[in-house]
């Protein structure tokens, strides 16, 4: 928050609420999603869908309700977060609808996804109305941490966990499949943040110095070793590279932010490299991923998916084929893991970069909130959530574009899957909460001793109004 407190006569800068701007941007983002849906339907089937008014009503209605709740409860929250999420969600829905239409008869992935979006929206409202302030979350360090770990390991329970495509990261109950790691991501970010706020003094103590970097003391290595072993366990037992990378990365980054010691980041990177090398040597699926990254065109049968995605990008070119005019259905899993390849094919690199840009804007707002935050827990939490978001987008889009070996993470707000959708909406809800606390003006009232006639000179409104004033 930029508050000019140095001079009484100077102007004071108060953050604006910007709620009308948010409403405008939300409607703009919703309109883009709706336009994408209409263009897709028209280009594929040749007619405007008859359900368009219903879709429009539901699709525009949901974010407007969230906006109204923000106006009511968090008037100073960041105005950009919600429109960005709506933008990504809308494009993702349109793209899933586009892939639905390839099948005959069309599948109903987009309808399902819209339902999950609705649940996500309800959860955001719940976060805003029920939690209201992020600071009390600090009390539940170990409860949330334990809940997160249990969720992470839930797919290993026989009978409950199911294995899809070699990775055992889903659970199936009541006919619905769910990826608990996505929810665990949010819980563990909160738990890590409050743990490090408590322990950062100890963790920042310098140990042996090696190559100009202060390494932490050996006795403080416990937590990082635990999380490292846990992420290795996920890699070994659940065969999932992405989740393991996400958790370890989140933990190491938060350690670095909490202690300001590069030693932790260096150590974490080395440990991750060791874990990755171990995975490469011992697991066939890791070798397949690395092979598809380095030399995909040597083996079409094994690396077909990634080759198909590369052809999609090439076919899309600069401006794309146009919505509904490409053939994204040729890539397996085009609606979930490879949705960015579908975007790249139909909207071209111009469209894919627009999407990446919006992800970057969400991350930027999260980090900005962390910078402006005046208490340690909120700072760490928003930095951690923003970083996890960035890491996830980087890992999956980097994987699809062959910048990195492919990891099976979801593309936030876009890929099909309910757990990812609701978890990311909750992340947006938490960032909104923190940004409201950060951006609202500091509350103080008039100094009684300073006003000569004492209490009587104060107007009734001054008593109930929060004033900004120069500190003593």
């Amino acid at each position, binding site marked *: 928050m*930029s508050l000019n407190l140095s001079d*009484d*006569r*100077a*102007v*004071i*800068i*108060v953050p*604006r609420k*910007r709620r009308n701007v948010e409403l405008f*941007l939300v409607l*703009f*983002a919703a309109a*883009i999603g709706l*336009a*994408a849906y209409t*263009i897709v339907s*028209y*280009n594929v089937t040749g007619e405007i869908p008859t359900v368009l008014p219903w879709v429009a009503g539901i699709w525009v209605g949901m974010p407007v309700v969230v906006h109204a709740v923000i106006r009511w409860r968090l008037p100073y929250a960041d*105005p*950009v977060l919600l429109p960005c999420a709506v*933008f990504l969600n809308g494009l993702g829905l349109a793209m899933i609808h586009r892939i639905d239409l390839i099948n005959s008869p069309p599948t109903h992935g987009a309808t399902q996804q819209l339902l999950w979006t609705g649940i996500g929206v309800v959860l955001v409202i719940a976060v805003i109305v029920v939690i209201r302030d992020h600071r009390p979350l*600090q*009390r539940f360090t170990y409860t949330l941490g334990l809940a997160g770990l249990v969720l992470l390991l839930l797919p290993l329970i026989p009978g409950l966990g199911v294995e899809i495509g070699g990775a055992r990261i889903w659970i199936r109950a009541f006919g619905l499949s769910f990826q608990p790691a996505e929810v665990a991501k949010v819980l563990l970010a909160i738990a890590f943040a*409050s743990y490090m*706020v*408590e322990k950062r003094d100890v963790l920042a103590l310098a140990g042996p110095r090696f190559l100009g970097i202060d390494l932490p003391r050996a006795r403080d290595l416990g937590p990082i070793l635990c999380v490292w072993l846990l992420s290795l366990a996920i890699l070994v037992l659940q065969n999932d590279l992405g989740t393991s990378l996400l958790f370890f990365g989140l933990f190491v980054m938060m350690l670095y932010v909490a202690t300001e010691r590069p030693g932790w980041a260096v150590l974490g990177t080395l440990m991750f490299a060791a874990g990755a090398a171990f995975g490469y040597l011992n697991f066939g699926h890791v070798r397949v991923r690395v092979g598809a990254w380095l030399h995909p065109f040597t083996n079409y049968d094994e690396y077909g998916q990634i080759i198909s995605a590369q052809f999609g990008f090439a076919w899309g070119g600069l*401006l794309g084929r*146009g*919505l509904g005019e490409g053939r994204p259905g040729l890539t397996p899993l085009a609606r979930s893991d490879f949705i960015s390849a579908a975007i790249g094919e139909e*909207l*071209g690199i*111009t*469209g894919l970069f*627009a999407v990446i*840009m*919006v992800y970057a*804007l969400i991350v930027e707002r999260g980090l900005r909130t962390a910078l402006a935050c*005046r*208490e340690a*827990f909120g700072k760490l939490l928003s930095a951690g959530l923003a970083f996890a978001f960035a890491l996830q987008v980087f890992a999956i889009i980097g994987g699809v574009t062959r910048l990195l070996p492919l990891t099976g993470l979801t593309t936030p707000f876009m890929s099909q899957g309910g757990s990812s959708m609701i978890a990311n909406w909750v992340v947006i809800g938490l960032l909104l909460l923190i940004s409201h606390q950060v951006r609202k*003006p*500091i*509350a*103080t*009232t008039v*100094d*009684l*001793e300073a006003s000569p006639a004492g*209490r009587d000179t104060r107007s*009734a*409104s*001054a*008593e*109930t*109004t*929060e*004033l900004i004033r120069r*500190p*003593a």
Partner: protein
Amino acid sequence: MSEITLTIVKVLFLALLWLFIASIVSVIRSDLFGKAVPNRAGQQLNEPAAPARRTRRQRGRPRRVAITNGSQSGQSADLVGETGENAVVMIGRGSDCALILDDDYVSTRHARVVLGEAGPYIEDLGSTNGTYVNGQRITAPTSLTLADTVRIGKTLIKLET
């Protein structure tokens, strides 16, 4: 749809995507600088829309404990809960305190302010560096008025209405 309309729709849609990004960036840009308000003494910076509920409150009754100096200036904790019951404001460095002080001279649970029957009082909770009311170190629960200044570590705290 003909080839040419297809291309026009395609390019227009991409332009729309980037227009959205441009408008977000312009919002962020204006947000960096906030709204400038001339600071004259006693001027209200918020809109004075005082809800009817708040005007019914008794005037002059302490409702908040607030920090008045340093980087945490302005942070406060409510002495009166949402439903009107009297709350206890714990002050210290610990995360369970209502008023968390970022001050090396403050104990984890340093002191507490209680709104009792006869008005607010402050009680030291066996802190290392003590609690001072108007410069005097307190040894027993001490009643507070709006004019008293409490010093805990390097932090000054006052009651506010």
